[in-house]
């Protein structure tokens, strides 16, 4: 059985690797008359990689003991120095790197980050060395490719996605007489109320729908998308999140806390060691796809009870962020940098990186891999990527995204009406865009 699985996986990975290799070869051949196109064997130089993924012992081991040796087999004259960081410190690293002029040759960054850094000239247009949007569209969904493009140029290649969607504890739902997750907002409210448990003193013991374990901004974005709303207008020049859809989404979140008493402030948080869906303190909630991996480590038998679902209002609520690889516009070894970037985005390396973090591969062809097929949340996310929406849009996104959480929290805490909170936020965002 194990042998069969390994063989199947090897075949799948080999096939995927061959496909991307052919694709990349096509990229190179597509610009064959470009003298600077990366050519295997001729690429050389010392390059640096700044990465918020591959962190921790397991991640470093994967990158340095498994992936980079494979890269060196292909490019023996390239030396890679790795600078590990976290997403929390990535901004600081990039800022200080830009000030000092020592910008890493290859940088991994998040969805929504590309626009700002591309506009500021930090990133190179990858199509200069043959990686075009048309080529990427053969391997990724349009929304994912869009996350790496800016002003007609390709500035990033996606490696992994972080998705958020609804998750239900089916054992608890069945106890309460429900046999499927909610299909509408009304059902969500009704079920959340029925599934909420408080003790005699009114202390919350189980929330019917957990929105506190997730960053407030991302929870709001997921609900906004489920209301069929958007963060910005079509040309990303004005906020759209304070329209009727956004207001109704934030109103619903506020009502869940303050009117329906489904969850109390402080009942859970992003710092929670164990997600309440895993220990039964939540019957439903918005969760990250790596909840599956957490469950696998904590209580594998319980995973059968977890059911992912799209939160449905007038739209379908699924959010995706992710990690993309970029090349510095000032790299002294652009060919070597692009070679590393393409290697890290190749099926083999990307699959390993996603598996290590329990994330969703951006490459469509990896849907058939054993990892994806063995991880129900990742599989669910990949199968529904066509309805997922991402954050970001204008080049100023990084400047304003930190303002979302206080605005959402002010509504949840009852300090402001949802419409006022969003209007005030929209004012800040518009000022930043116009600045």
């Amino acid at each position: 059985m194990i042998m069969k699985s390994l063989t199947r996986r090897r075949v799948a990975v080999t096939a995927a690797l061959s496909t991307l290799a052919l694709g990349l070869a096509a990229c190179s051949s597509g610009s064959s008359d470009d003298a600077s196109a990366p050519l295997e064997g001729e690429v050389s130089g010392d390059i640096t990689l700044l990465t918020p993924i591959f962190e921790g012992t397991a991640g470093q081991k994967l990158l340095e003991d498994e992936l980079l040796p494979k890269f060196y087999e292909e490019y023996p004259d390239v030396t890679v120095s790795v600078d590990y960081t976290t997403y929390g410190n990535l901004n600081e690293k990039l800022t200080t790197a830009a000030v000092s002029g020592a910008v890493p040759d290859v940088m991994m960054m998040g969805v929504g980050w590309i626009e700002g850094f591309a506009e500021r000239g930090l990133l190179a247009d990858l199509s200069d060395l043959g990686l075009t949007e048309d080529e990427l569209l053969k391997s990724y969904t349009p929304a994912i490719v869009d996350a790496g493009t800016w002003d007609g140029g390709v500035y990033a290649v996606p490696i992994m996605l972080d998705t958020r969607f609804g998750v239900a504890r089916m054992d608890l739902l069945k106890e309460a007489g429900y046999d499927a997750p909610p299909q509408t907002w009304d059902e969500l409210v009704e079920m959340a109320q029925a599934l909420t448990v408080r003790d005699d003193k009114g202390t919350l013991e189980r929330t019917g729908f957990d929105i506190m374990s997730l960053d407030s901004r991302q929870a709001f974005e997921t609900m906004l998308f489920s209301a069929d709303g958007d963060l910005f207008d079509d040309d990303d020049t004005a906020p759209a999140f304070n329209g009727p859809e956004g207001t109704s989404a934030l109103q619903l979140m506020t009502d869940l806390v303050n009117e329906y008493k489904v969850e109390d402030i402080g009942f859970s948080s992003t710092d929670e060691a164990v997600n309440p869906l895993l220990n039964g303190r939540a019957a439903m909630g918005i969760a990250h796809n790596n909840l599956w991996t957490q469950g696998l480590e904590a209580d594998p038998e319980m995973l059968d009870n977890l059911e992912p679902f799209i939160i449905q209002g007038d739209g379908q609520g699924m959010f995706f962020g992710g990690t993309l690889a970029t090349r510095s516009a000032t790299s002294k070894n652009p060919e070597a940098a692009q070679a590393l970037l393409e290697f890290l985005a190749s099926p083999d390396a990307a699959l390993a990186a996603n598996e290590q973090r329990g994330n969703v591969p951006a490459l469509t062809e990896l849907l058939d891999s054993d990892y994806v097929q063995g991880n129900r949340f990742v599989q669910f996310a990949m199968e529904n990527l066509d309805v997922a929406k991402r954050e970001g849009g204008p080049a100023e996104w990084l400047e304003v995204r930190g303002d979302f959480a206080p605005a959402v929290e002010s509504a949840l805490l009852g300090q402001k009406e949802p419409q006022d909170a969003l209007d005030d936020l929209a004012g800040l965002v518009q000022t930043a865009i116009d600045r």
Partner: protein
Amino acid sequence: MSRTETPAGPTQVLPAPVRPPKRTHSPAERKLRRSGWLMVLPALLHIGLWTAIPVVATFALGFTDYNVFSPPRWIGLDNYVEIVQDPVFRKATWNTIQYTFWTVPVSMFIALVIAVALNQGLRLQKWYRTAFFLPQVTATVAIAMVWLWIFNPQQGLLNAFLGVFGIPGQAWLADPDWALWSVILVGAWQGIGIKMLIYIAALQNVDESLYEAASVDGASTVRKFFAITVPMLKPATFFVLVISIINAFQVFDQIYVLTDGGPANATTMMTYEVYRSAFEEFRMGMASAQSVVLFFFLLFMTLVGRRATREDS
């Protein structure tokens, strides 16, 4: 009071003041001066490079729109106007003042009491000193992580402790009514160690004969504390006050780890807003202007502290 009268009479022509002869240094003195300059040169270079130039640059950048990636653009006082109009920075300023107001005196008082107690020759004195000083030498991030667990509404030690007495637990860091107090508690607790150490050092310089004389006069322990200990510790108190105010105004790590400035900006501080402007919003010009405001706040508070502690001297 007597006053010197100038005698009336014809105007006297005063002799031109004689300038003292220019002092010439002997070769040995010149050599000594050169050696002195050479010895302070590394420190001067260090301060010039890492303190003076950044300070001057900060003042200059405060008048610019600078996003790191493109050259600074002169915008005059726009950053300062925005700071005045920004409700979040106003909130951060007020939070910082509240934080300083509560952490500095409270931790100074507790530190003084502990220092006096530990100066009495208690058993396990060294152990106690180490225990009280430990938070000071432990990384704030590590401390904040421990407090994060203590404050956890469900599994936290604090709510469990209160539960023993039938007191309902709180969402310490998520409730805007409690979040700032929770942060203040951590700040006060962490600051006790260094203050205690300074007070202990100062206490050991207080002349024992003063206490002996007071005892002969029949002074009680409390009377001796307020009439001898407190006045004799005045220089140390001024020093502790100044460094405590500076430290309190620079609070950052524990906010970063404990609350991220939330909920709804309830615990954001001036330093945290400087960080956000610089590294989240890439507005180095704005961050510089906010730093200048912070600098003048610190200067003002230090001068007030100086005046307060010198009044009776």
